[in-house]
């Protein structure tokens, strides 16, 4: 215990930065995440409960919320896919004893990381488990699942994976535009990063964005699906021309990108527009996840999505209006689209989306955002985006 207290003192500097961030947070979002003490308390009390149950000759259990689209609901007023109250109770038995052992060992590792004010990437945690003899993980997906389980277990208490000190491997997307990010590294040195001065490169979103502070006067944030399109807009200084912040998502955006955009949008009160391919994946996976979160990480959607985002394009109607070259929808595309119409609470509650997806399925084709190059490489900069941005009210919800 003494060791833990010492460690807590060490982290106090970091905490003060967070306090500022929290102060600036808009109303209704009181607690983004737990403090280190709270996280460790959660681990301790869970372990204690299990220990006590065992010594009362009972069989301990863990109650985990079910993480899937079947256990989420969507209320446009709240703005995100909210996890339902279905739980699965995992009781310690012969069949679950391995999982129990691994979960507890992972919690113990987490506590140690917090105490030492360190972190482990998901891959590193997987390798640490190799010391656990029989309880080791054979493949990384197994350890990732256990991490997600612990995160879900504590989600009610606003503990998420980053608080448990398990960081994802991939960094966030790229950012450029009129934005200054104020960051602090492990040594405590504060840096002011100007996202408009990366030349032909771009600022890269860090894995943990909670401590960042922003300064900007941009008019909107443009989220871009592909690296290629981002490259074009960035190198032609589109952000300067339209006074916007460009964010490259690279497919389905990571938690860090989602959180980064969310904080930026909320704190600076600037609108967010998404510019993705016109296909079921771009709409139902990429856009839906950035807008309202995902089914499998429903327990963290509350903080890790951007409910204010709107869909700039490419819309099915754009394919017709701009006479874009197309590809045929594959069977997987069609299945994805039908699934979205039938099971996704987000699309189900927006008639405009229902209409758009039905239109796409009827047309039987898809178009990539780079298809606009048919009209000239810079057509997207000179014509398409300016035209679209004149009527943000016409964007899909």
């Amino acid at each position: 215990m003494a060791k833990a207290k010492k460690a807590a003192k060490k982290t106090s500097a970091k905490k003060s930065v967070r306090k500022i961030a929290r102060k600036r947070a808009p109303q209704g979002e009181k607690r983004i995440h737990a403090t280190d003490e709270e996280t460790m308390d959660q681990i301790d009390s869970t372990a204690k409960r299990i220990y006590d149950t065992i010594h009362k000759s009972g069989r301990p259990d863990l109650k985990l919320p079910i993480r899937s689209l079947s256990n989420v609901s969507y209320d446009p007023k709240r703005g995100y896919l909210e996890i339902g109250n279905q739980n699965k109770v995992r009781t310690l038995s012969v069949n679950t004893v391995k999982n129990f052992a691994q979960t507890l060992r992972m919690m113990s590792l987490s506590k140690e990381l917090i105490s030492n004010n360190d972190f482990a990437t998901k891959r590193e945690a997987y390798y640490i488990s190799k010391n656990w003899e029989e309880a080791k993980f054979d493949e990384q997906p197994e350890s990732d699942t256990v991490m997600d389980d612990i995160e879900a277990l504590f989600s009610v208490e606003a503990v998420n994976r980053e608080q448990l000190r398990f960081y994802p491997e991939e960094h966030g997307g790229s950012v450029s535009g009129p934005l200054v990010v104020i960051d602090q590294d492990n040594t405590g040195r504060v840096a002011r990063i100007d996202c408009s001065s990366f030349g032909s490169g771009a600022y890269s979103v860090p894995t943990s964005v909670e401590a960042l502070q922003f300064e900007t006067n941009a008019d909107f944030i443009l989220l871009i699906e592909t690296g290629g399109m981002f490259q074009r807009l960035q190198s032609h200084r589109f952000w300067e021309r339209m006074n916007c912040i460009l964010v490259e998502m690279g497919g389905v955006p990571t938690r860090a990108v989602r959180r980064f955009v969310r904080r930026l949008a909320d704190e600076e009160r600037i609108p967010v527009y998404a510019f993705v391919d016109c296909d079921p994946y771009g709409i139902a996976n990429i856009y839906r996840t950035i807008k309202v979160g995902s089914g499998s990480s429903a327990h963290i959607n509350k903080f890790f999505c951007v409910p204010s985002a709107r869909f700039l394009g490419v819309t099915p109607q754009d394919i017709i209006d701009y006479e874009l070259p197309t590809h045929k929808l594959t069977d997987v595309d069609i299945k994805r689209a039908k699934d979205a119409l039938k099971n996704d609470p987000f699309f189900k509650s927006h008639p405009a989306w229902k209409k758009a997806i039905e239109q796409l399925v009827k047309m039987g084709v898809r178009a990539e955002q780079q298809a606009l190059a048919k009209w000239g490489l810079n057509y997207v900069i000179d014509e398409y985006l300016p035209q679209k941005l004149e009527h943000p009210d016409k964007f899909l919800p």
Partner: protein
Amino acid sequence: MSKGKQGLLFDEGGSSAVKPKAPARKKKAPQTKKSASTRTKAAPRSKKAPGPAPSAESMSKKQREISVSEFFAKNRHLLGFDNPAKALLTTIKELVDNSLDAADEARIPAEVDITIDQISEDRFRVTCTDNGPGIVPKNVPLVFGKLLYGSKFHRLKMSRGQQGIGVSAAGMYGLLTTGHAIRVISRTAKNKPANRFEIAIDTQKNHPAVKKQDEIEWDRPHGTSVEIELEASYRKGHHSVDNYIRQISLANPHATLRYRAPDRANDMDLTVYAGVTNELPPETAEIQPHPYGVELGVLMQMLRETKARTVQNFFHTEFSRVSNKVAGDIAKLARVPANRKPAKVDRKEAEALHKAIPQTKIMAPPTDCIAPIGEELLEKALTSIHPAEFITATTRRPVVYRGNPFLVETAIAYGGAELSADDAAIVYRYANRVPLQYQHGACAISKAVAATDWKKYGLQQPKGSVPVGPMVLMVHIASVWVPFTSESKEAIAHYPEIIKEIKLGLQDCGRKLGAHVRRKRRDADEEKKRSYITKYIPHVATALQEILELSDKDRERTVVTLTDVLERSRKM
């Protein structure tokens, strides 16, 4: 050895198709065709193409009788002498089959000594000595020196050999490849002398040429010893002689086999498959053909040769299960007068009679003519050869295909150290207690094994093939006339009735096996779960110790308590 009753010379193709009492023409069709094609080849028409066209008269000079022996000398593959390795196996097979058949028929518990000596790289001497009834001296040359001579072809009785070509073909092969005549010693009783023969075959005339015959001293009171020298090669593996002898002992649990392999260290180095029972297989009755299996040509032949005076009497006496009334019904249905002399029946009437047979209800043939090995003996024999963890056998009731009664027996040996779990099951195929080693793909048994759904019994099975598992599958078909696909008797023809019976037998064994496999899997699961407790509980305790900073004593207490809790919850 087979005791011959009448000699039979194969003449030109045509009439040979009609043999008295030969129920299945299928057997003979290839012979007829082949001899016809050989004849065409013999006439060198194409070579003389530029000259004047040959007249019927000139051609007739070239048309001459082909002796069966000559035909088979040129078509040895038909009898299973395609290559040196197979020749060795076929020779052993014919000798052992004959020894076992003779002993069984004489109700003597068979004891057979098989010795193979390697003389040079590609030359072997095979000796097979039995304790059977022996053969009377005057028949010995015919039995061993004339093809298609024997006691088995003309009757419907369950026996290993069927056609009477095997042993003389082996002798002929030896003669052709080494120039050595077949050597036979035979003695019929203690008070009779033993006779020694050296017999060659005149392939032109299909006639034995006795090179030497004398009386000798022999230490056996009765029995036959045959020695054949032949060009061959000795191999190990699936198609090996070793494997064959092991398999034949499996289907003949009453017989004792002593085998000296060519690579033995000395004569004391031998493999003995001792009989696992003193009980001889039940004696099987010889039956008359059943009308349902008879073919038109055969029927006409029988009508010509019968001693019966009327058609009605002919059906009653020449066939099994035909009462006088049923015989009358057949005649009436065919609109042939019941009192017509059989010899006077013309082609048209014969055809009408043949058509009337299937329309008449006739009792199934008697089934006392087939002797199963029996479930108990099958299991015993399998155990002695494959000490597996689970053994089961099923003997089906006799049924009929085309008027021929047959029965199917199946057995499974599963598990044990010798059998690999990742390989396809080993399938032993038997017909009348004789193992079939070649042409498994063409055999009805293989088809039935692949067509059975083994997944139901907890085994893996690639689509349309033999199941995978540590398993030996044995299928035995016993019949008075086993329908082979060729003269070399390597595969059983695909009769739906036969395939259906095999599948039913396999399913019966499969169900018993399935119960065993499931029980075993359950036990393994149980064991695995038990090991889970001891494996992972310490980790639960260690993690709790780390988080809650417990003492080592507390940790150990947790392990004990939790183990107790889980053990208890499992029993509930």
